[in-house]
């Protein structure tokens, strides 16, 4: 925890064999932290009112209301603190909480899959951390949250809960105190390089995020101006100057200036965000059991991931980042909810956007493979029909739209005559994307992993442990049947739940599935050259049952 402030190590009283055996309280400073969060935004409001408002009565009333809120928060969080207790017994983690409605939760210690430490700014100043204990249950409300305990004890708790059960004999030895993470068995796999911040500014979502933030900040600012009665003069002056300047400047210059401002502003903002998110990033392996990601400038986050839950990794390359030769690395692990739905997608991040080669190397390190993720047999290409499918998916709608617009333009004057050119013009870049989507398709296996690659907006390469495949889902749409393609999905308990090889050739896909998990699919496969004449998959089952020939693949 080099990023966290040094911590008083007196927090754990006498270290008995297991320091969390008795019922524990949260750190009382948690009360201060939650009150401070409520209090902080009030200062500027009160300050502005004090400066601007002539009506001191109203100011006083507002201050009174705010004080009330603060007192309520104080009492509420104190009650919360008072009634929350937890303990760690030999088998279970137990948590009592609630003042009005009491709750008691008890979780077997083997079920604890992740222990994440987060410290927002205020928490950090006070030297406390929020501890989230994940049990990997899909049902909601699965997360146990301790807000907050002192950082050193949080670190201790994390180590205790994630210690492999076989190693419980060593519990008598108190773990090396302080969360420095420098104890034996910790191996650093990756550490951020300054250039990587630039890579992470290249993700489009960050750019958008920046502008959303700027927008809301500007509206707040204008509110402040209005309150200060400065609005009229300031905005008048601004708009006057702007008008006088812009009157003499050609339109294209204005447009260029606007675009440059938006891009530059977005980039700078994105840079700031990526600094906040990735500052001090370190990926470490602790012993053989856990991977650990630590990062954050203002809010520090420390996410632990049990290695036995790891089923693979995913390299994601959003288009902008891909053009710069960068890539993001995330874990495919059981017990982490889907990123899209839970909003906690950042708990599976293994590496910030980084050069592709680095991501590949670190990915291989994480999976205990030698070299890089790209090592091994090259991926298999999908049939050309898959390209035709992608092209026609883009071109047919464009043609149809163009034809419809042309007809409409011919019939009535409401549609400009050139409108049919627009979809045709858009078809060109779209077919480039379709070509790219086809080129990115690929599958194969490397060592113990299934590899699939797809996507153009975000190109993804997934390595999934073949051991982790718990079934197959093979689908074929009517069009795919006509063209001899199918989609093979390996279902798994980890990550998205399934990873697909899209639009593979029928035979290619099936034998790939068979070779990934030998023996699972083979009883249901038949190999016979007669079938090549019998096109497609006729629904007539009886004839199949007669001609069934099972071939057990060597």
């Amino acid at each position, binding site marked *: 925890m080099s990023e966290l402030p040094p911590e008083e190590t007196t927090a754990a009283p006498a270290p008995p064999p297991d320091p969390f055996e008795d019922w524990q309280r949260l750190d009382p400073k948690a009360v201060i932290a939650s009150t401070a969060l409520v209090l902080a935004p009030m200062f500027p409001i009160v300050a502005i009112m004090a400066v601007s408002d002539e009506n001191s009565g109203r100011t006083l009333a507002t201050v009174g209301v705010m004080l009330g809120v603060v007192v309520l928060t104080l009492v509420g969080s104190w009650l919360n603190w008072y009634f929350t207790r937890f303990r760690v017994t030999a088998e279970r983690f137990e948590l009592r909480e609630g003042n009005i409605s009491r709750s008691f939760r008890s979780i077997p210690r083997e079920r604890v899959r992740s222990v994440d430490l987060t410290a927002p700014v205020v928490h950090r100043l006070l030297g406390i951390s929020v501890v989230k204990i994940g049990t990997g249950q*899909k049902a909601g409300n699965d997360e146990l949250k301790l807000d907050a305990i002192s950082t050193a004890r949080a670190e201790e708790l994390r180590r205790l809960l994630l210690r492999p059960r076989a190693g419980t004999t060593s519990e008598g030895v108190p773990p090396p105190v302080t969360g420095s993470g420098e104890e034996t068995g910790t191996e650093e796999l990756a550490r951020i390089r300054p250039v990587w911040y630039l890579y992470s500014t290249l993700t489009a979502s960050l750019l958008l995020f920046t502008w959303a933030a700027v927008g809301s900040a500007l509206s707040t600012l204008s509110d402040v101006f209005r309150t200060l009665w400065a609005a009229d003069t300031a905005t008048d002056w601004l708009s006057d100057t702007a008008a006088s300047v812009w009157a003499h400047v050609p339109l294209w210059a204005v447009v260029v200036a606007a675009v440059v401002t938006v891009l530059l502003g977005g980039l700078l903002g994105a840079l700031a965000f990526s600094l906040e998110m990735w500052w001090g990033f370190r990926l470490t392996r602790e012993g053989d059991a856990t991977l650990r990601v630590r990062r954050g400038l203002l809010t520090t986050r420390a996410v632990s991931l049990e290695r036995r839950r790891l089923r693979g990794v995913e390299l994601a390359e959003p288009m902008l980042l891909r053009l710069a030769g960068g890539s993001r690395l995330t874990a495919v692990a*059981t017990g982490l909810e*889907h990123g899209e739905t839970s909003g906690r997608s950042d708990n599976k991040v293994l590496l910030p956007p980084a050069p592709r080669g680095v991501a590949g190397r670190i990915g291989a390190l994480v999976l205990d493979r030698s070299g890089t993720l790209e090592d091994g047999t090259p991926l*298999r290409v999908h049939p050309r029909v898959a390209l035709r499918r992608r092209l026609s998916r883009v071109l047919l709608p464009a043609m149809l739209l163009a034809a419809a617009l042309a007809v409409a333009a011919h019939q009535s004057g409401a549609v400009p005559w050139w409108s049919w050119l627009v979809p045709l013009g858009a078809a060109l870049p779209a077919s480039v994307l379709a070509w790219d989507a086809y080129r990115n398709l690929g599958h*194969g296996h490397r060592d113990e992993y299934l590899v699939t690659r797809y996507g153009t907006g975000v190109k993804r390469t997934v390595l999934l442990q073949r051991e*982790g495949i*718990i*079934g*197959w*889902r*093979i*689908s*074929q*749409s*009517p069009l795919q*049947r006509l063209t001899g393609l199918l989609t093979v*999905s390996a*279902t*798994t*308990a*980890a990550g*998205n*739940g*399934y990873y697909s090889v899209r639009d593979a*050739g*029928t*035979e*290619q896909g*099936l*034998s*790939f599935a*068979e*070779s990934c*998990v*030998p*023996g*699972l*699919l083979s*009883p*249901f*496969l*038949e*190999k*016979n*050259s007669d*079938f*090549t004449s019998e096109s497609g*998959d006729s*629904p*007539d*089952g009886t004839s*199949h*049952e007669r001609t*069934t020939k099972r071939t057990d*693949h*060597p």
Partner: protein
Amino acid sequence: MIDVGGTEGGVRLRPPRHRVARRAVLWWSCQAASRVVVLLAAVGFGAWWSPFPNRALVIALIVLGVLGIGYVAVMPWWRYRVHRWETTDSAVYTAAGWLSREWRVAPMSRIQTVDTARGPLQRALGLSSVTVTTASAAGPLTIDGLERDVAADLAERLTRTTQATPGDAT
């Protein structure tokens, strides 16, 4: 391990061995018919209520009616020919769909739960659905329209087999 991607022979997925109950056709027909009736009623209501006498709506109604009758006539039989299931000592295998098909395979060792479910219509027809779930979030295997006894048998057999397999099935 076989050579992947070669063009030798022609590997294909054979359909599972067992069909579902023939009565399932009736069940799917009822479902299809009710869907078509609701759709036609909605469109017909629209045609009747629209302030101007709308020939287009009437034509749409006729087209929809013809399509709907075709759907009710064809889909259940087609589906009946596609829907199949099979269990071996090591795996469960199902095929489903009609226009688009989907085949699912789950090894016995990874099965977590086996559920039997019967809706009111299925109960009236003496049918059951058996759903086999694994630890994956991506879709359980469902066999619709089984004979009630067959379903009960199957569920029991699967439960017994999966209980015999150790491990947490992930």
